[in-house]
């Protein structure tokens, strides 16, 4: 009975999706300003806004491009971005029907952009990260309507879940590499962490690394390898560091991720102003090695002269890794590569300008945003000016660090 019902639901949704020829690629296409409609009981929408600090789910129907998913679940989300007037939302297709998907999507996030007057910091950073080969969610912008009323401009963010892992890590011998251990990093208020050893008890790691797959496994299977990684990073001297750590953490990938955050001047990332924040950690399927996945980059583009090695020495993992000459060189080379990629054909400036133009009308019509249209206009100008100044600054700083010839324009 249950299987039949869910099967019918799946079939309907699949048929609806395939009939319209729409896929998740279309949904997250960064070239398109989407329109997403949520239909929910008026009482529920009022209650969600009133209780925006809670994670309670509410049922809704979702329509996009003429395709409707029925009885999905939505809830308020965010940390500092929680809002009663313009709630950030997590959308789950399978909240009320096991295995229900919408055009192949199990869940996604509607980022309310309340902390970014430009509206494009997060989406631009993720586009650049993907261009640099760093695991990052697909994103675009959308107008959000609830019960036919315009709520505001949102970023449409792909969830870091098994589907995303399969997309990024692909298959090995027909085995989709999406069944490893996925963790979302939880920022623990009043307890900034910079990768110091938290002791042999798993409590400190459980508080910070929220498991998203394989939840039924034992604590030792889930958090044991993280405790071991942190312990080894804190206790292993340089000579044996790479041999000891690399099997448990993709050091080259980590350095590349650090370099990308450095180029985009991310102030609240892995070496954030208040400790580590905003990332996923994934232990690859059937392996001991972990990798980092980018998340929530809306504090990037902080300033054009943001130091490229800011706070690297404060974080144990970053410091000990970059003490190794090879990785230190790789870091600065990667920062320079990011600058080159951004500069290639004026890509970054063009991308910023394209996104700003795409969202302009929707942003100005958004009356729920906590900043004015004048604020947005100022932020727009700041963003447009960022690429040229940042690229020059970064290239000059890298040359200084590596002792190579300074490019033109350096002081």
């Amino acid at each position, binding site marked *: *009975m*249950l299987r039949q019902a869910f099967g*019918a*639901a799946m079939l309907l949704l699949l048929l609806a999706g395939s009939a319209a020829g729409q896929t998740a690629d279309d949904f997250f296409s960064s070239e398109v300003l989407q329109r997403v409609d949520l239909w929910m009981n*008026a009482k529920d929408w009022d209650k969600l806004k009133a209780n925006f600090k809670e994670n309670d789910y509410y*049922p809704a129907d979702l329509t996009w491009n003429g395709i409707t998913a*029925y009885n999905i679940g939505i809830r308020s989300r965010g940390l500092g971005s929680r809002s009663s007037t313009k709630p950030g939302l997590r959308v789950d297709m399978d909240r009320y*029907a096991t295995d229900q998907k919408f055009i192949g999507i199990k869940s996604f996030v509607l980022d309310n952009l309340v902390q970014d007057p430009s509206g494009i910091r997060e989406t631009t950073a993720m586009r650049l990260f993907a261009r640099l080969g760093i695991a990052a969610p697909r994103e675009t912008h959308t107008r959000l309507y609830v019960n036919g009323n315009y709520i505001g401009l949102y970023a449409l963010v792909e969830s870091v879940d098994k589907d995303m892992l399969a997309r990024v890590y692909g298959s090995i011998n027909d085995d989709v590499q999406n069944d490893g251990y996925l963790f979302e990093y939880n920022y623990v208020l009043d307890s900034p962490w910079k990768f110091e050893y938290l002791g042999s008890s798993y409590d400190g790691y459980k508080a910070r690394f929220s498991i998203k797959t394989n939840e039924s496994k034992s604590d030792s299977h889930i958090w044991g390898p993280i405790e071991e990684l942190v312990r080894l990073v804190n206790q292993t001297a340089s000579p044996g560091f790479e041999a000891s750590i690399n099997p448990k953490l993709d050091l080259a990938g980590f350095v590349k991720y650090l370099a990308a955050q450095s180029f985009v001047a991310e102030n609240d990332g892995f070496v954030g102003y208040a400790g580590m924040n905003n990332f996923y950690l994934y232990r690859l399927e059937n392996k001991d090695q972990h990798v980092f996945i980018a998340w929530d980059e809306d504090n990037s583009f902080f300033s054009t002269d943001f130091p490229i090695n800011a706070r690297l020495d404060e974080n144990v993992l970053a410091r000990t890794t970059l003490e190794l000459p090879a990785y230190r060189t790789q870091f600065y080379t990667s920062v320079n590569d990011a600058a080159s990629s951004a500069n290639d054909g004026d890509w970054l400036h063009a991308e910023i300008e394209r996104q700003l133009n795409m969202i302009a009308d929707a942003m100005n019509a958004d009356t729920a945003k906590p900043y004015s249209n004048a604020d947005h206009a100022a932020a727009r100008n700041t963003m447009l000016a960022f690429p040229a100044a940042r690229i020059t600054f970064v290239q000059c700083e890298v040359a200084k660090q590596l002792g190579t010839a300074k490019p033109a324009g350096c002081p």
Partner: protein
Amino acid sequence: MRRFGRIALGAIGLVLVVGGTAHAQKKPVKRGLVWDDRPSIVFGRDIHLDIRMKLQTDWRTFDPDVDEKLYDFHSLRFGLKGEVTKHFAYEFEREVNSDGEFGDWKDVYVDWHTFDPVSVQGGRFKVPFSAEQLTGPTDTDFAYRSLAASIIAPGRDKGGMVYGRFFGRGLTYQAGFFNGDGDNGQIKEEQFVSPGETPDAVGPSFAGRVTATVLRPLPVPQRLKSLRLGAAYTNAELPEGLNSLRGKSVMGTATYFERVYVKGRRQRIGTELEWTPGSFGLKAEWMQAREDRLGQSNRNADLSDFVSTGWYVDSTWVVTGESKGDSIAPKKPLFKGGIGAIEIGARYDQLGFASASTEGPAFTNPRAEHLVPNTDEVWTIGVNYFPNRWVRLVGNAIHENFEDPNRSISPGTAGFWALLFRFQLVF
């Protein structure tokens, strides 16, 4: 409630004084504190105040283990119950929690019963629906009532009721109006209201029940004449919100069907059968609640009714030969020439929840037109041992099986066993 309790106490005190004066001089009777199966204060003929106590403590195990405590202080109640002349009766009963503090009031009522065909009861008492729910917790055949009687039947509420009987007890009726919809039907979840609104309560409600020994006038074997059939109906106003009935496991340790959004009316219908020839007992009930869901869809449209349906059948046999009445008193108590009374029995019951509509895909969403159903099926096998009239030892083996294993006592597991031993002391 506290105010209501004071009013009821005052009313009963007044009746005691007035009634006592009117009937005190007919025949000399033993007065003062006496023992008549229980402590009783006798003021005069037909005027007395019984001091009552009910204690139930449980020891139980679960398979698979569900992280519940082995020992459960189940229930302790103290009460006062009595009559004032042949015309009035009254009862107070209040729960005491495991910390020794007074908890909820149970029965608090005054009853006028001068005439068998028309009697009147007022106060707080059980809404007339479901024979098993109307049976006191110390007199039920098994440690726990059936799920249907526990969850669908309203339980107690404040109100007034007319009741009566004809042809002895050949035909009985009860009909009353109540403030809410019983303890089982009241709103237990915090309600969300928009600024400026005030939350509504469930009710008022109407309830009626009729029973009859339908074979009594017919030329059938004498044993069949005790067969009693009954029917009952309730109707209550239901405010908007997450207020529906919900599915709880037998011991209340898990919710297997969460509340859904409702608005409109909650109606119940019930049928019952009871046959107790000699030491044998057969009981069965079927009942259903239908709750409106007006304007409750994701798009504010009406939804099909939310339907709760349950039934049970149980059979018992008093091995030692005592009659199967409302309560069992051993003919030969332990230490008084006998071993007491022993009763064995078995019961099957089930309670399911679903939407009236089964069209389209089903969802667990509390606003779905077609809800994913779930049913708890329960087998109970039991032994009751009565060493005397005050003590009962209960042993029950309970097996629950959930239609949806993901909504059960432990998600992913459908079947559960529980073994229960209960010590009960009542006077």
